[in-house]
């Protein structure tokens, strides 16, 4: 059974979330204080965390960082502000996605499901992709540089995989939003930009001069050239 950890100080909203999520056949752990999150998290590791940003005890951003230090579990932020600084701060702290209050129940469920879903591995493709000294293992969901395993969140893995599978293709941010996040008609490019930065900081030799995930100015991103690999 899927375990969702709901971190929100508003008891009523938390209860409502629990009703809805339980209705969808999920298990729910409710946490109302930021400083209690890690205890609960270690006792019963959830499959996904719904995290409010304004929390008593410990700020949501800090909580996000703590969880990330421990785990690659999907984190979806709940924020009352759509302001860029808040959103970007949360994404940079390690959240995979965010949803602005008030949201539609359907929208929330769609986001949660998108984050829980594994990108199906095409049977025709090989089980391993190599590029620029980085290998992507599609079965073990692992990314290695040499022998060293690089810890990526599921979302980062999916994003990297989407780019690496079609090395010649230039992906617009909107295309990536649709493919990786499952959004339609979204122009929220902040999500893509922040996650690309995070992937770069993990897999590039020099994140300021990326070789694997390249920016195509004015269009979007593409994977670094395969021929460059040694």
């Amino acid at each position, binding site marked *: 059974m899927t375990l969702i950890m709901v971190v929100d100080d*508003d008891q*009523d*909203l938390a209860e*409502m*979330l629990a*009703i*809805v999520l339980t*209705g969808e056949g999920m298990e729910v752990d409710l946490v109302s204080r930021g400083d209690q999150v890690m205890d609960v998290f270690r006792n019963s590791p959830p499959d996904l965390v719904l995290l409010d940003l*304004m929390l008593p005890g410990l700020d949501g951003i800090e909580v996000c960082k703590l969880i990330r230090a421990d785990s690659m579990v999907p984190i979806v932020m709940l924020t*009352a*502000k759509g302001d*860029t600084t808040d959103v970007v701060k949360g994404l940079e702290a390690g959240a995979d996605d965010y949803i602005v*209050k*008030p*949201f*539609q*129940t*359907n929208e929330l469920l769609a986001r949660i499901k998108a984050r829980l879903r594994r990108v199906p591995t095409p049977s025709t493709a090989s089980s391993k992709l190599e590029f620029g000294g980085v290998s992507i293992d599609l079965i073990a969901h692992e990314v290695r540089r040499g022998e060293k395993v690089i810890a990526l969140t599921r979302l980062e893995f999916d994003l990297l995989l989407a780019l690496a599978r079609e090395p010649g293709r230039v992906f*617009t941010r*909107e295309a990536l939003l649709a493919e990786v996040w499952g959004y*339609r*008609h979204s*122009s*929220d*490019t*902040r999500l893509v930009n922040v996650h690309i930065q995070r992937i770069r900081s993990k897999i590039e030799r020099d994140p300021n001069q990326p070789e694997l995930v390249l920016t195509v*100015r*004015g269009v979007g991103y593409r994977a670094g050239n395969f021929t460059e690999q040694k």
Partner: protein
Amino acid sequence: MRFVNSLAFRVLGTTLLLSTILVSILASVLNQRLSDGIRESKIESALNESQSKIFQTENRFTLAEVTAVSDFRDAIDRTITEFADTKGNERNPEVMILQAKSPQSRFLIYERSTNQISKGSISEEFRTRVLATRELQFTYGEILYPSTFLTPVPIERAESALIIGGQMNLKNFGQFEMYFLYSTAPEDATISLISRTLLVGAIALVLVLLLIVWAVSRQVVTPISRAAEIAEKLSAGDFAERMQVEGADEIARLGLSFNEMAGALQNQISRLENLSRVQQRFVSDVSHELRTPLTTLKMASDLIYRQRHEFDPTISRSAELLSAQLERFENLLTELLEVSRFDAGVVNLEPEITDISALVERSLEALTPIAEENGTTFRYTHPATPVMTVVDPRRMDRILRNLLSNAISYGEGKPIDVEVRVGEKSIAVAVRDYGIGLRKGEETRVFDRFWRADPSRERTRGGTGLGLSIAQEDAQLHGGVIEATGQYGRGSLFVLTIPRDRSEELTEKLFSLTI
């Protein structure tokens, strides 16, 4: 610093001009007066001297009882020789004795001059004048010296001179004229010395004046330039700067009132900043405080709404209304908060290079379901190549959605035309519907907050009345504008135009506002 220079230079320039005019008038008048004086005194003394010499010569002839022609000639020669003698340093005038052309003296032509100066020195016109009266006459002319035998080419040497002529009656020999040619060289030298001195004096005076004016203007300009510098700093946002105030003169008063002004500005601005901070905080607090319960409300309402078929019809309908009104409430809240952000001036653009054609395409796709509900379709025209420009894609999308929902709401189910055009300096998106349209005067009012074309009209779409106003603010944030036009019963046209370079003024019009 340029300001200081220009002001000081302007004062210096004016001083230079005016003092030059004044001093040159003064100097030339002085020069004229002095040289006139010198010349007049010269004439006076020369006239006296000439008169006495004429008397002297006449007396000599009278006393000597010269009768013989040879004696006469000797006497004339002697007279000329005497006159030619120079006494001391003073230069004597050249003297010329000419014989009047009277019948008496027809056969006795004997004309002599000192230093053999040419007879041409005396003009015929002057001779006529001299002969016409007993009075002495004077004129200015030239002494023409004959070429000396030393000069290979016979060149006459000329010297400007004061020429005095008078009639002379020589006993037994009739009427002669005697001319005295005073070289004016010494006077000319004096006059030119005076002129030069005056010129030098005038220039020195002007220079000294300029120096004084410069010194004075420095005293005035330095505080003014300081004030200008501080004013520049103030406008750049540095309110800590103040002028130094010394003494109690006008400059000090300038400093005092300047500082007062700066202080008042500082207060005012910090008050406004404070107000804006409070506003921002308020917006943020309201946002958070209202949104969380609204989320719970919405989720609860969604849950009930999904199960409405299990309830009896009144409750089921209530669930529908609850859900719809909650959505409306949410939209209103979102837009109110956005409006208050605009009012507080706390909105920021997040520009990115964007393909406008693709962005419009996405907005159209997003609204297609609503359009279909209303029986409307979009007809989209855009340039073949991508329309790349730097905009905030989320705001741009919001503008388009607002324009499109508006067109759907008032388009009466007729197709809606959407077109992107690209100009040299701007990019425009036009949304044209063929529905209700706008009455005269409404094309500007549609952007007013909470304005509705017809208060009695049913609010079918539940619009907030803020959409177009927000869209206009979003457009203005991009340096652009939304313009509207319409005809009642024939639809309306909304054109969003944004400059390609946000810093530039919008001048280009890509759509004509006529339908």
